[in-house]
């Protein structure tokens, strides 16, 4: 176990290091002077020189790189050009809606998709099975900005069940803020649930054909117990994996969803940062998301270990 963890940990560090490097290079890859690029066409040469110095762009590239990595390791991701504040502080201020949006949408997807996926596999070829596959395909192919707009129009504007957009304003309490996340979470969750449903169904179908499922039936237990105890535990392993993988989908989905619902989250922040050419914020978001991704995958691996004793450690 410790050996395995150590290996994973080293792997994580390598990945984070690569991400840091990529984040560093991206800014410097843009043609021309990054400082001029960041400031846009209206900047005076003097502004550009000032910014170059402030960002350390006048120093040799290797020195810049070491300073960047050393800073990042210490939790210093630089200063936002637009907000004139540390990138970490800017990110922290925008993290809440994104984190809860991700959590709720994942929860929504799991609650909807796993039971349907299990049942569809169990009743393979039935009307419910076919309906669920078709709707999953539909859900995956309708762009989430469209579902978002439809939900806003009918569930928010016409029926008034949910707020149309925003995060409740500066004085909104926690509950009020979360209420603003209901529709966005469903919109984002629908896309993920399509994937999770198809995956759950497929892995459940596999497992239901296994010899040990037949053994379970031969023991004289209810079908419910056969499926929920003997099959699901085995099907759970690939499901855990796909849930880990949907995290990437979640990140890109969050950008669109936050945009449509005008949520002050990381997705919106990064889009604005791109428009404002706020490179340090773009870099910072990239690094934080990559680190999260690595952590989520580590968590799924650890879950694996806990469930399946065959995994050699």
């Amino acid at each position, binding site marked *: 176990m410790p050996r395995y963890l150590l290996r994973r940990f080293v792997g994580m560090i390598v990945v984070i290091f690569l991400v840091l490097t990529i984040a560093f290079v991206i800014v410097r890859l843009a043609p021309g002077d990054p400082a001029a690029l960041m400031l846009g066409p209206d900047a005076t040469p003097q502004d550009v020189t000032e910014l170059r110095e402030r960002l350390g762009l006048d120093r040799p590239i290797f020195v810049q790189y070491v300073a960047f990595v050393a800073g990042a390791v210490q939790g210093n991701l630089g200063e936002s050009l637009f907000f004139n504040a540390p990138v970490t502080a800017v990110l922290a201020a925008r993290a809440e809606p994104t984190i809860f949006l991700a959590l709720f949408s994942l929860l929504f997807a799991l609650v909807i998709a796993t039971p349907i996926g299990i049942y569809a596999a169990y009743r393979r070829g039935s009307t419910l099975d076919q309906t669920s596959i078709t709707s999953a395909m539909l859900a995956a192919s309708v762009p989430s900005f469209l579902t978002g707009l439809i939900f806003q129009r009918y569930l928010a504007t016409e029926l008034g069940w949910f707020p149309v957009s925003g995060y409740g304003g500066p004085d909104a309490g926690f509950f009020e803020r979360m209420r603003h996340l209901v529709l966005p979470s469903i919109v984002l969750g629908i896309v993920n649930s399509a994937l999770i449903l198809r995956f759950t169904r497929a892995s459940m179908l596999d497992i239901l054909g*296994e*010899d*040990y499922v*037949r*053994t*379970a*039936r*031969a*023991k*004289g*237990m*209810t*079908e419910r117990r056969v499926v929920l105890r*003997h099959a699901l*535990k*085995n099907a759970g392993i690939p499901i855990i994996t796909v849930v880990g993988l949907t995290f990437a989908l979640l990140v890109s989905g969050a950008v669109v969803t936050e945009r449509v619902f005008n949520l002050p989250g990381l997705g919106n922040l990064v889009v604005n940062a791109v428009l404002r050419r706020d490179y340090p914020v773009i870099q910072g978001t990239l690094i934080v998301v990559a680190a999260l991704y690595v952590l989520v995958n580590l968590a799924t691996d650890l879950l694996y270990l806990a*469930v*399946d*004793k*065959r995994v050699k450690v």
Partner: protein
Amino acid sequence: MRDRILDVSNLRVAFRSRGGEVTALRDVSFTLERGRTLALVGESGSGKSVTSLALMGLLPPNGRVSAGRLRYRGRDGREMDLSALDAAGYRKIRGAEISMIFQEPMSSLNPLFTVGDQVGEMLWLHQDLDEKARRKRVVEMLDLVEIPAAASRADAYPHELSGGMRQRVMIAMAMICNPALLIADEPTTALDVTIQAQILDLMRRLQNELGMSILFITHDMGVVAEMADEVAVMYAGAVVEQATARDLFADTRHPYTEGLLRSIPQPGRSKSNRLVPIPGTVPPLHALPQGCAFAPRCPYAEARCEDPVVLTEKASEHWSACILDRPVPA
């Protein structure tokens, strides 16, 4: 007096498939006396496993019993037709009255539960014992099937055990509720020869100690000779001969059985005539001839073989589905 635990008559099983319905079992009839072992033998694809699954009510969703009766008489003397049971009725029978062990010890146990859990679950399902009593019974049972260090092995996962050990676990699981009938579908085919002999010994010993009846499925005539009191021979979805093991070997009535017996390798014979395979192949189920299914491969076939043929009693307790009384050496 006779005490039949199992009386299968004219069992027919059909599978729905892409090309329409296939009849996998056309006419399976055999009987099993309480406390005895009946071997069900036949080539691959003859329908042995389908027969056992039909008995357990475990046919896959595309298969169904379309005709015939599966009469079972339990310990309490009550007779029932297994094919008429509903799901709840079958649950009470499976594991408690009729148990089954399968051919594939490597994949028949759930990889994510300890073997103790899996054996204990059988008790949990059918007997009212507390956790501690259950555990005690499980270890006793693992001990009975000669698993060394049973108490600690109970906490092992299947992948930590060898194929032979896993099959012992399967046997322990099948036997822990003391069922009246054990169906063993080629329990030793996947094991190497020495382990195979040990498992067969174990099953015989358990039968002596616990008194269950065994339906033993195999395609190995050597195993038949070792295990069986009675033998039913299957060909292309039908039983073509049933007799006591002694009679079947000494007084073979069906040409197919004769062919099977001739194809057993025997240590005494020289290499050249060790194996005499039956010429031809089993006809596909969808293209069976009208009359005797074995006729196209039968050295004794004549025109009459194109008419349907049924199991008839050729000698006392010796049944054969052939127009001949016995194969006449050419």
